[in-house]
């Protein structure tokens, strides 16, 4: 064998234990198996609600992460995309009889268009300037929805008739909803992994880490950013439609509030920005916890779960800025270096 070995050895094809860019790991497969089991096992009603919300929020966190984590576009205005998706498909269903299975694509597309315009308009803004612009844009959408009563029902909101049928995307069985949300999660996760391992992912990471250097290497940063925001908004909008079909009621406070926007950002931040598994872990850790805290402490200590939430966020940001995923990765690296 005289051929010199390739300088960068291709990794041997065997399964990785922990999540990594570009490949599927055993950890991810195990997690998927657990999720499927949770759906199939038909747990009690209240648990099913938690599961449904956990899956949905994991998908939404992943969607936010494409803009916030991968592209570095931290947005506190994603509720606008969520709400646009939710309202679009609901208005189409309620007023025009369009099935949500089609409506959700239109909602997503509308959100994507809005996001693209916003990103182009805010092209020169960085850091806190950009964050505040997203906040302002979302508020504009919320106030518009609040006041455009003819279209959106204003503060009273819109309700979807709970007539169960597949065409209506309304189901009697929570298990079906859980499966629907899991489907959403899996699809968004697949998209995230695909982006992460692709050349487009490289462009995003580079533009995020150093825009000038990325430009000098042939990346068009504006195009990369706009694409990321558009994709993120599209997936978020679809999540909004799915939420509408589950919750069967929309109003600006529920789907367009700043608090909602913060939530979209919080879960990936806690779970680990910039990785695929991070937002999922964030949602899996936080959503059940906050639901349980809310149910358990109820009215008397209303806000306790959120106070804990806030406190945890501060601590995590200061001491574990790479979130849960980062902590896991360091654990895995330490074990790998300990192994003989």
């Amino acid at each position, binding site marked *: 064998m005289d051929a010199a070995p*390739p*300088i*960068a050895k*291709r990794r041997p094809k065997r399964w990785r234990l922990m999540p990594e860019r*570009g490949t599927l790991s055993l950890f991810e497969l195990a997690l998927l198996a657990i999720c499927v089991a949770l759906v199939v096992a038909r747990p009690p009603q209240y648990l099913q609600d938690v599961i449904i919300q956990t899956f949905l929020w994991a998908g939404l966190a992943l969607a936010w992460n494409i803009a916030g984590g991968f592209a570095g576009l931290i947005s506190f205005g994603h509720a606008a995309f969520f709400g646009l998706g939710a309202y679009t498909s609901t208005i189409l269903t309620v007023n025009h009889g369009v099935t949500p299975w089609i409506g959700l694509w239109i909602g997503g597309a509308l959100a994507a268009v809005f996001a693209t315009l916003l990103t182009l308009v805010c092209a020169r803004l960085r850091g806190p300037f950009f964050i505040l612009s997203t906040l302002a844009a979302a508020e504009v959408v919320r106030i518009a929805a609040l006041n455009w009563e003819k279209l959106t029902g204003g503060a009273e909101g819109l309700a979807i008739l709970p007539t169960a049928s597949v065409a209506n995307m309304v189901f009697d069985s929570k298990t079906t909803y859980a499966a629907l949300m899991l489907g959403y999660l899996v699809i968004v996760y697949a998209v995230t992994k695909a982006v992460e*391992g*692709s*050349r487009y992912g*490289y*462009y995003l*990471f*580079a533009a*995020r*880490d*150093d825009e*000038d*250097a*990325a*430009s*000098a*290497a*042939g*990346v*068009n*940063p504006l195009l990369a950013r706009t694409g990321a925001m558009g994709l993120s908004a599209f997936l978020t909008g679809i999540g909004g439609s799915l939420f509408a079909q589950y919750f069967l009621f929309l109003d600006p406070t529920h789907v367009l509030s700043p608090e909602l926007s913060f939530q979209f950002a919080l879960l990936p931040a806690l779970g680990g920005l*910039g990785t695929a598994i991070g937002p999922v872990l964030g949602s899996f850790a936080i959503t059940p916890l906050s639901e349980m805290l809310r149910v358990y402490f109820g009215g008397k200590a209303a806000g306790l779960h959120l106070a804990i939430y806030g406190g945890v966020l501060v601590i995590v940001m200061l001491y574990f800025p790479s979130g849960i995923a980062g902590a896991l990765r360091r654990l895995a690296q330490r074990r790998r270096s300990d192994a003989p």
Partner: protein
Amino acid sequence: MTALLEVRDLTRAFGALKAVAGVSFSIRAGELVGLIGPNGAGKSTLYNVIAGAIAPSSGEVVFKGRPVAGWKPYQAARAGVARTFQIPKPYRHLSVLENVALSALLHERTVAAARDSAGVVLAEVGLADYLDVPVANLTVGLLKRLEVARAIALRPSLVLFDEIMAGLTPSEVKGMTSLVAALPARGITVIWVEHVLYAIMNTAPRIMVLHRGELIADGAPATLAKDPAVIKAYLGEETSLA
């Protein structure tokens, strides 16, 4: 022979200060040209204008026969102009290999192929042992070599090196100098800004001297070393010219 790069009466002013003042020169394909001058001479500004980071105030930049003044950096990169940054700008959350693979993606179709070709380039600059190291752990010298690798991986027609020798040991300087000297034979024309003068004066057949935004000399190193204007520009500088 038509020029690869032509700069005509290029001026870039910041308010009342002319960082680049009426600079004109022409570079043919296959040349290795040094660019020296005291600090504040306008070298970085000149690079920024050529590479598209800023637009000129007046004058022309013609690359491969096309007027390109005011183009965007990514357009310059895609047209075949690569540059390094004086203060290295690595992608902090990517590994060394990934940093270079991004550049390689300009010409490779798949991520895997880009990673392979990045590995080859990294070996050339002597970073083969650092492929998976996170960039945050590298010293300045290594980061400079990473800059060079990223530029070469773009397979450019013209590369603008900006002080790539700073922080290197003498033997590393030797290695890097041979690398740079070999580039024209690979089809890469080089403009080389450098403060480590002994490296550049002994390697580059042609040197341009910039001082206060103006091109005050352009010729062979031996002639330049005796040029009174050049010597005057460097008076007070501790670097020697020969």
